[in-house]
């Protein structure tokens, strides 16, 4: 509770704040348009393209990039890699914010957002993969919230409540991994029902596995990426443990990501072989597919490996950006680009600028909340009262 200043100092009129303020303003205007004029007023969604950027980016990418929470907490608490302890809190925080924003963004996309609890309290559609996703996301958001509370409780000085939550750590972590496995993979499984609409190079019975494994890659890469961002902007908020462990986290996670990427590449090739899709590789779609596989799977895999071998933290940090982009590209390919590949270009979807506006707005809200929390609560450092505990 000691430091309440913003990292940029006293004045509120920094360039960052001005831009953020403008985005929030535009977001507010679009929000009003969305809830008065309907989806048609702000989006290019159509009967052929019922899902657009808000599903492709806000939901699919958002959930994948928030996987850092379960990956890091599993590494630390389940696999016993205590040296990553200082990475857990920031990862949990990002995951919590990520999921919260996913749910927030969904309120724009679905037609009647106040009915979002209906599948659970009115009439469950248990045959739907979306039901599974919804249930897991709702539960996991709760789990993440509880996992995050110790930081807030320390900030508020509520020791008793905090110690209860800390005792639940292992249970919550296991819960988190189970739920993450389920919904990360189910997001891929959403597309299993549309084999006639998704290009065969991307459609596969392994979609759920692909989504789960690539979510691990996304989680590992996001932890590295986010920590390099945090180093840039919140360096003064970090304690010695965090600073000392940060390079180790980057090296360890980079090495892990490299190996997981390698496995991911293998199962992608297995997918080609199982469905006998080789001949598609020589088409235009094939070229695009190879861009994804070579440029955004193999390349980061190799760069991570070099970084891990040479103990080159800088290279690993840069590669994490590439790997994150690769995940974004993959989710876009499956939900937008290679989806409806059979339709003539006049029927294809391209996001309306207001759709992009809402996505930017949502991300901005996330960054602002993140900034508030790390400047106020013990995320990047340990609260002095609880230092002795591990």
């Amino acid at each position, binding site marked *: 509770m000691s430091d309440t200043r913003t990292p940029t100092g006293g004045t509120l009129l920094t360039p960052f704040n001005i831009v953020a303020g403008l985005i929030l303003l535009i977001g507010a205007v679009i929000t009003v348009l*969305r*809830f008065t004029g*309907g989806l048609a007023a702000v989006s290019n969604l159509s009967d*052929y393209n019922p899902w657009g950027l808000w599903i492709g980016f806000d939901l699919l990418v958002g959930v994948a990039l928030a996987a850092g929470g379960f990956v890091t907490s599993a590494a630390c608490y389940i696999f016993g890699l205590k040296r990553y302890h200082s990475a857990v809190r920031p990862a949990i925080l990002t995951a919590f914010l990520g999921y919260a924003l996913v749910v927030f963004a969904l309120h724009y996309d679905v037609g009647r957002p106040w009915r979002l609890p209906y599948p659970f309290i009115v009439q469950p559609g248990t045959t739907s993969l979306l039901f599974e996703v919804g249930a897991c996301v709702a539960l996991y958001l709760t789990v993440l919230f509880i996992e995050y509370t110790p930081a807030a409780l320390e900030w508020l000085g509520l020791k008793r409540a905090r110690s209860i939550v800390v005792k639940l750590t292992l249970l919550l972590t296991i819960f988190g991994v189970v739920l993450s496995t389920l919904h990360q993979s189910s997001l891929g499984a959403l*597309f299993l029902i549309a084999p006639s609409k998704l290009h065969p190079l991307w459609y596969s019975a392994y979609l759920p596995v692909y989504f789960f494994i690539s979510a691990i890659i996304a989680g590992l890469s996001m932890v590295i990426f986010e920590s390099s961002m945090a180093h840039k902007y919140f360096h003064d908020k970090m304690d010695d443990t965090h600073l000392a462990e940060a390079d180790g986290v980057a090296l360890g996670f980079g090495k892990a990501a490299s190996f997981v990427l390698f496995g991911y590449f293998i199962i992608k090739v297995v997918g080609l072989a199982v469905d006998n899709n080789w001949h598609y590789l020589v088409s235009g779609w094939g070229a695009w597919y190879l861009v994804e596989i070579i440029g955004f799977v193999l390349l980061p895999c190799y760069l991570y490996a070099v970084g891990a071998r040479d103990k080159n933290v800088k290279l690993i940090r840069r590669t994490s950006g590439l790997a994150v982009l690769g995940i974004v590209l993959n989710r876009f390919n499956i939900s937008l680009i290679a989806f409806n590949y059979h339709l003539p270009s006049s029927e294809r979807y391209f996001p309306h600028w207001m759709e992009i506006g809402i996505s930017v707005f949502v991300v901005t809200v996330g960054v602002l909340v993140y900034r508030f929390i790390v400047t106020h609560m013990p995320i990047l450092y340990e609260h002095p009262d609880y230092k002795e505990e591990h």
Partner: protein
Amino acid sequence: MAITRRKFLSWMGAAGVGVTVGKSAQAASNKHFTGYPDGMGVLHDIARCVGCRSCEAACNTVNQLPPPETSFKDLAVLDRKRRTTPAEYTVVNRFDAAGEGSKPIYSKNQCNHCLEPACASACFVKAFSKSEEGAVVYDASVCVGCRYCMIACPFEIPTYEYDKALTPRVMKCTLCHPRVQEGKLPGCVESCPTEALTFGKREDLLKIARERIRRNPDLYIDHIYGEHEMGGTSWLYISNVPFRDIGMREDLGVTPAPALTSGALGSVPIVVGLWPVLLTGIYAISQRKDKVAEEEQALAVEAARTATQDEAAAELKKTLEMKEKEKETAVNMAVKKALEEAAKAQEEAAQAREEAAPEAAPEVQDDKDAKQTEEDS
């Protein structure tokens, strides 16, 4: 918005149905489902369709859809390919598939009322259900508007009221379910002037379709579209041109939609069942490793401590032994000395006896002395 008791209890209901049905599902344990035996459908004979749009007009009337932009008599709309919209549950399209100069082909398009509807499988509030009568009906009172049904439908049929801010619905053909329940014909079927549409039991329609193909093998393509596509549909088509030439996909396969997701859905409970075991196991192993490491450390410390102790003990023992030895030597020496002295004394005594017999008394005395020395040491 009203939540009925029936809906609220649907969790229990869903489970309950399963339990009561356990037997019959088991009886059919090969798990092959053939759909409702008396389900109705419509046979669309594309060879007979003249593209008059009467069905569109009738559909608009019976479903009280908003009035069209241009009259249904206006055939100019056929110049471009249309799809279903929230205001048009059905559309007729014209194709020049039969080749130059020959008559154009017209085909009517609407929800096919699949036997295993992808839309129903996909909906996470179960807003769609396949009715006994054959229609796939939609319940707007629970629809959240996620539009996953539209992603799922392989025929790209459901449409959405994107322009409604607060009450958007999914819109699609109802197979005139309310009218059918009243015993009436679907609006479009009733209005068709050329009998290109026939309403009836799906089984009967299949027979009729086969019969028509058999009688006119030169006219019809030998395929009933909808008999097997995506597990079969209630709406069936026969045509005089290949279906792919009139915008109907022939690459959909015969797998019913629910079968596409059953594998993924089936692995959910397995993950829930095994992941906690696996993860707790890994946790226990890593804990154990930590513990073993800790114990080993403790042991090492202990060993170091006992080692010093041992050393001290050994020292002590050594000293003790040494002392003992010293003592022994001392004793031995004393004994030796005493013996020597005794021997000497005896010699002296013998000498003295030899010298004088009356000096016997000191001999005894000497003996006593020797004994004493022995005892002393």
